[in-house]
């Protein structure tokens, strides 16, 4: 190592950081991947579904060696009222073949494996080190410091997660506003593999992914998730922070009640909580995106706010990998031209625009606003449950025609047809 100068320093060995370090090491660059936890993944927590086809481009057939849990063949949207549930349940064998569309993962094992791939490609993993500040030469970022150790590099890549103190320190993003994030609370619940496979009607390595809307979050904007792993369930909530503060409800109690909801309770029956964690989830999509680059530095993954939650799925890891790929291309060009200025690194933004990452962020840019709609969490789950209860209820009295049941349910739920239509219209445009 020529003195303390490397080609690239990547800060944060999450999915984005490990992928970037892997791609840069493959280009023959001298890369240090610095992780504050004792190993990659020890500080990371996700709902736990990785849309895998983008990683397949980086590591073909990654699922063959990577510690993935199950391939998700069954996606369910569940509308919950306090007592009832209404499910849209889709299962397809198309997702049961490689390249797998989505896989459930547990970040501690998965990120550690991804970090090992980066090391195998030649990146130097530096675990247990917290980067405390950036080093500057005038406006340009020239390295990082941890304790009294300083390390310089032509390029610094901030992959330090949703709080991203480095992007803030580099002046690329302001203090995070409450409207732009949600608090993710998650428990991992151990259950024997056979119980999971029976309870969720799964065969072999198939998996289910539930996205839960309605009373899971006690009427606060957000949603729940429940994903099946091999021998455990990942179950959690994503609660919009500004809304939570407005309602002054206790996050840990909402989560506790969620675990106790009748429908959820049946799915976690006889389970044992083996871990309880939390993680900030960027929610505002395009609006939240900071400037992604400055002289000598790029921002990728959650640190760049790259997450989409549209009620059907919550995606972060595949966008993180996409951003790492774009960053690696921008780095390759910067090293070819020996130019690490912001102008040169703007190529990163261009690559991001050309990729699915920005395309999806634009497509679903209205989703965050649409998800703020209170009716989603109280009125509509109530409506759906009410309509179906009446459809199936037989009182040995003349049964109302379905359209009348629906109309009355809408009226009783003091919903206006106009609201309903506008919401369907907005939903259509946002999702």
């Amino acid at each position, binding site marked *: 190592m020529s003195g303390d100068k490397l080609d690239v320093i990547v800060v944060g060995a999450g999915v984005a950081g490990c992928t970037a370090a892997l791609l840069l090491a493959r280009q023959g660059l001298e890369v240090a991947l610095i992780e504050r936890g*004792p190993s990659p993944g020890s500080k*990371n927590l996700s709902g736990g579904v990785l849309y895998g086809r983008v990683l397949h481009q980086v590591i073909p057939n990654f699922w063959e060696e990577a510690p993935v849990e199950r391939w998700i063949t069954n996606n369910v949207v569940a509308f919950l009222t306090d007592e009832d549930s209404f499910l849209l349940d889709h299962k397809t064998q198309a997702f049961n073949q490689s390249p797998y569309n989505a896989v459930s993962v547990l970040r501690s*094992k998965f990120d550690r494996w991804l970090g090992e791939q980066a090391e195998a490609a030649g990146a130097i993993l530096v675990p247990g080190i917290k980067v405390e500040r950036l080093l500057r030469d005038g406006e340009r970022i020239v390295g990082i410091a*941890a304790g009294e150790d300083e390390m310089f590099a032509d390029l610094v890549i901030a992959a330090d997660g*949703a709080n991203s103190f480095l992007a803030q320190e580099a002046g690329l993003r302001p203090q995070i506003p409450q409207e732009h994030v949600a608090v993710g*609370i998650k428990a991992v619940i151990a259950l024997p593999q056979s119980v999971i496979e029976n309870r969720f009607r799964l065969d072999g390595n198939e998996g289910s992914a539930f996205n839960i809307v309605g009373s899971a979050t006690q009427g606060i904007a957000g949603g729940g998730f429940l994903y099946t792993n091999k021998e455990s369930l990942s179950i959690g909530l994503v609660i919009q922070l500004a809304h939570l503060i407005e309602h002054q409800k206790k996050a840990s109690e909402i989560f506790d009640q969620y675990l106790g909801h009748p429908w959820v309770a049946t799915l976690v029956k006889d389970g044992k*909580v083996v*871990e*309880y964690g939390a*993680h900030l989830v960027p929610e505002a999509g395009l609006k939240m995106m900071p400037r992604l680059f400055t002289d000598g530095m790029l921002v990728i993954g959650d640190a760049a706010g790259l997450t989409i939650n549209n009620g059907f799925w919550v995606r972060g890891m595949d966008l993180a990998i996409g951003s790492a790929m774009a960053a690696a291309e921008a780095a390759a060009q910067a090293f070819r031209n020996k130019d690490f200025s912001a102008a040169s690194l703007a190529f990163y933004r261009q690559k991001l625009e050309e990729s699915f990452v920005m395309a999806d962020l634009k497509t679903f840019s209205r989703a965050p606003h649409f998800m703020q709609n209170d009716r989603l969490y109280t009125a509509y789950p109530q409506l759906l449950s009410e309509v179906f209860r009446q459809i199936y209820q037989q009182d040995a009295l003349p049964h109302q025609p379905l359209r009348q049941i629906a109309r009355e349910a809408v009226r009783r739920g003091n919903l206006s047809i106009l609201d309903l239509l506008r919401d369907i219209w907005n939903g259509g445009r946002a999702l």
Partner: protein
Amino acid sequence: MKRLTVTEKLAQNKYELDDGHPHIVVHNEVCEAECKIRACLFVCPAEVYSEQNGKIVADWAGCLECGTCTVACPPQALHWEYPRGGFGIIYRYG
């Protein structure tokens, strides 16, 4: 499934406690001046913050390092940083 209190849930986790190096310091004078709703008392998933005889106290040992409090609280109310390298929560599953 047996309902667990937050403390009991946190007890399942693995922590590398950095004895004597708290990573959260509460500046109560700022809390008094700028914060009415005491968001820290209800947004934190690990219930790190509690109010004891009028003062906000942070039991930082159980912190899950999500950073929600840094966004919910008035900017100067907390000195909040990640624990030293290798310390704090260690997710075995994640």
